């Protein structure tokens, strides 16, 4: 991973408090950007995303495995960018069941029980993990 941060540094962003964003690109070069219900830590180099209805994202990933995910720190709103590459899709097993339970909880909180239905847990390798410049950094710099 080529980064100034590691996935372990941003695990608080994966608590699901604030929605993450995923940008993808079709084979023809058309970008797409949408929100994610859940990003889950898998290991030091991998995350899993819930795939329920972001059909354009899935279509793009099948053509081009590269994506960029933006996470938010739940206590400050600071953004963290992950450059990622699609690895595999899991439609059963432990990871899938864990994500399904978490997605059900999110859907219940949002009143979207009939809308969120997990199709698969999509696993991505993290290539780069970088903070986005923020006023919080500026405040810390001034306090030093």
């Amino acid at each position, binding site marked *: 991973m080529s980064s100034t941060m590691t996935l372990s540094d941003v695990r608080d962003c994966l608590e699901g408090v*604030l929605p993450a*964003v995923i*940008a*993808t*690109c079709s*084979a023809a*070069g*058309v*970008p*797409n*950007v*949408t*929100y994610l219900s859940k990003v889950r830590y898998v290991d030091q180099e991998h995350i899993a995303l819930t795939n329920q*209805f*972001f*059909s*354009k994202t899935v279509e793009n990933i099948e053509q*081009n495995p*590269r*994506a*960029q995910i*933006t996470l*938010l*720190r*739940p*206590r*400050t*709103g*600071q*953004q963290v960018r992950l*450059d990622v590459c699609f690895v595999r899709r899991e439609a059963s097993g432990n990871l899938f069941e864990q994500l399904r339970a978490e997605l059900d909880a999110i859907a219940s909180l*949002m009143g*979207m029980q009939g*809308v*969120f239905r997990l199709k698969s847990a999509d696993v991505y390798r993290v290539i780069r993990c970088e903070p*986005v*410049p*923020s*006023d*919080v*950094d*500026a405040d810390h710099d001034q306090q030093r």
Partner: protein
Amino acid sequence: MKLEALREWITEPVAIQIATADETGTPFSVRGFGIGSTATELHVGVIDSQARELLEVMRRTRRIAVNLTHPNTLLGRQLKGPLLRIDEPSVEAAHEAVAYFGRFVKALALLGLTPEQCHGMFHAGSTRWLRMQPDAIFDQSPGAMSGRAL
């Protein structure tokens, strides 16, 4: 394409996400701060310090997608079309970014988020408008119809 039908997304403090992609298909995205339109053109504000890579790529490829989502209802629209222009940074764009973010934080307060939880999204400084001409609009609201062309 007339943007009048998108008035609800352009005048409210919606969440703004902008994306582009380079020649190899690597995507880049950034949060937008500020939005406006004419009859056929949409403009969104970006903060230079947060958008350096995106701006560099966008200058070359002219590719742009803009997602506008109401934070309280999650109703969303995605606009795609040619990038018309990347403005020079302006005081007006920076002021509008501050004003927009104030309205956005108030909208997020309805969800129970405190200003402290939102503060880090913003980075005051050099801000500019990106101008695009949407030629395709997609439903981005959660559900089976997400991604449908409108």
